[in-house]
């Protein structure tokens, strides 16, 4: 089904956009000055509080009023990405903070520069900490990509409803859609879990028992 590909595309682009925005946001919240911190937490509050569908309508129907017009797919990616950034920034912020300050001091005491400390000491640990919550965020974006339906993007769900219009078998088709979402979620989690295990280091078990 072509719709599945669009769903994957939406998810991937939305997540990537979110990632690109989230990293500097997290950075700003942890290391930034007052202004940066206020800006970052304001962003996070705002985008966590608006329902995605409202955000999508705003971008798609609202922005043309001030002269900015987006294609439906672009609007969806923007909406998904902007909101995901708010959540992802929290994941990274928590992960960065969970690397104890003592390790930063130790690295400084050895003569590392601030950036070196971040690259060699903080980041490798923060990434491991953020992998599990990030997998969670992935599934949320994947599922919420179905809201693109509302803007007329022909993704998995809309494709399904087109088929229903000709076959009149809503049960079978919607079940198929659900199954595809399930399959996507499961395989994505499998991949991320594999990655987590590959990077696993004693002392960094993020899950209770590793299978």
């Amino acid at each position, binding site marked *: 089904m072509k719709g599945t590909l669009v769903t994957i595309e939406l998810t991937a682009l939305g997540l990537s956009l979110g990632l690109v925005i989230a990293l500097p946001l997290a950075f700003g919240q942890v290391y930034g000055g007052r202004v940066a911190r206020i800006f970052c937490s304001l962003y996070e509050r705002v985008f966590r509080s608006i329902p995605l569908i409202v955000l999508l309508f705003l971008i798609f129907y609202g922005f043309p009023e001030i002269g900015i017009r987006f294609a439906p797919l672009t609007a969806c990616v923007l909406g998904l990405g902007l909101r995901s950034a708010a959540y992802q920034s929290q994941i990274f912020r928590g992960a960065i903070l969970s*690397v*104890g300050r*003592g*390790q930063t*001091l*130790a*690295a*400084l*005491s*050895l*003569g*590392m*520069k601030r950036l*070196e400390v971040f690259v*060699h*000491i903080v980041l*490798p*640990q923060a990434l*491991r900490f953020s992998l599990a919550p990030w997998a969670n965020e992935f599934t949320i974006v994947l599922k919420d990509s179905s809201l693109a339906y509302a803007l007329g993007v022909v993704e998995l769900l809309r494709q399904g409803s087109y088929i229903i219009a000709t076959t009149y078998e809503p049960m079978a088709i919607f079940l198929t859609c659900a199954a595809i979402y399930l399959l996507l979620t499961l395989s994505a989690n499998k991949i991320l879990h594999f990655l987590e295990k590959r990077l696993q*280091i*004693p*002392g*960094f078990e993020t899950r209770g028992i590793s299978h």
Partner: protein
Amino acid sequence: MNRKNTVLRVENLRKSYGRNVVLKDVSLEICEGETKVIIGPSGTGKSTLLSCINRLTEPDSGKIWLENAEITQKNVVSMRQKIGFVFQDFNLFNHLNALDNVRIALLKVQKVPREVATRIALEELDRVGLSDKAELYPSQLSGGQKQRVAIARALAMKPKLMLFDEPTSALDPELIGEVLGVMIDLAKNGMTMLVVTHEMGFARAVADEIIFMEKGVVVEKGPPQKLFSSPEKERTRQFLNKLTELYGEEKKQ
């Protein structure tokens, strides 16, 4: 005392947090190969003093020299490489095994070739008696082993001076000995050390001078024998008595 090169000189160091003055014009000097021990009640600025020396805490005023070069904010990266710092809670890099913990600064800061860094790191691990644990991660090591790795990590940079901030305070009593053993060896092999500790056994064994600090000032300093037997200040005697009460086994030694 024979006059050797002064390794560290601290002059009129001051530091306050808000209205709370932590260090009031602290001055001290350490010559090459000397070990000095700082004791004193908690909250008297001992740790702040050490972290000021390494500029992990920026002092308000006062000067610090390492071998005739003043340590300033500008040259701090190169100066820190010459000063080893051992923390109370080890602060090992949790994502790296023991070998990489010791090796990383050599590789990333001093840009030493990989084989050389590995060789130095293994030597230092051997010196602290942990060459067989090189592949283990911090979470697989005991507290005493972690602290010994931390010491090896600092030594690998070939520092002129080692600072120890209560290196055994976070350890189980049974593990203290192995860390102190390493430190005593270091002192005897001529490392210049400034140690904040309440391990009086260690102080008696290797300290050239004990510095008693309280409320941000140096109350009294002198060789261990003198401080233990005939301190000049009443307060010093009180404090040392308290310590001996706590760590009773040192009384008769």
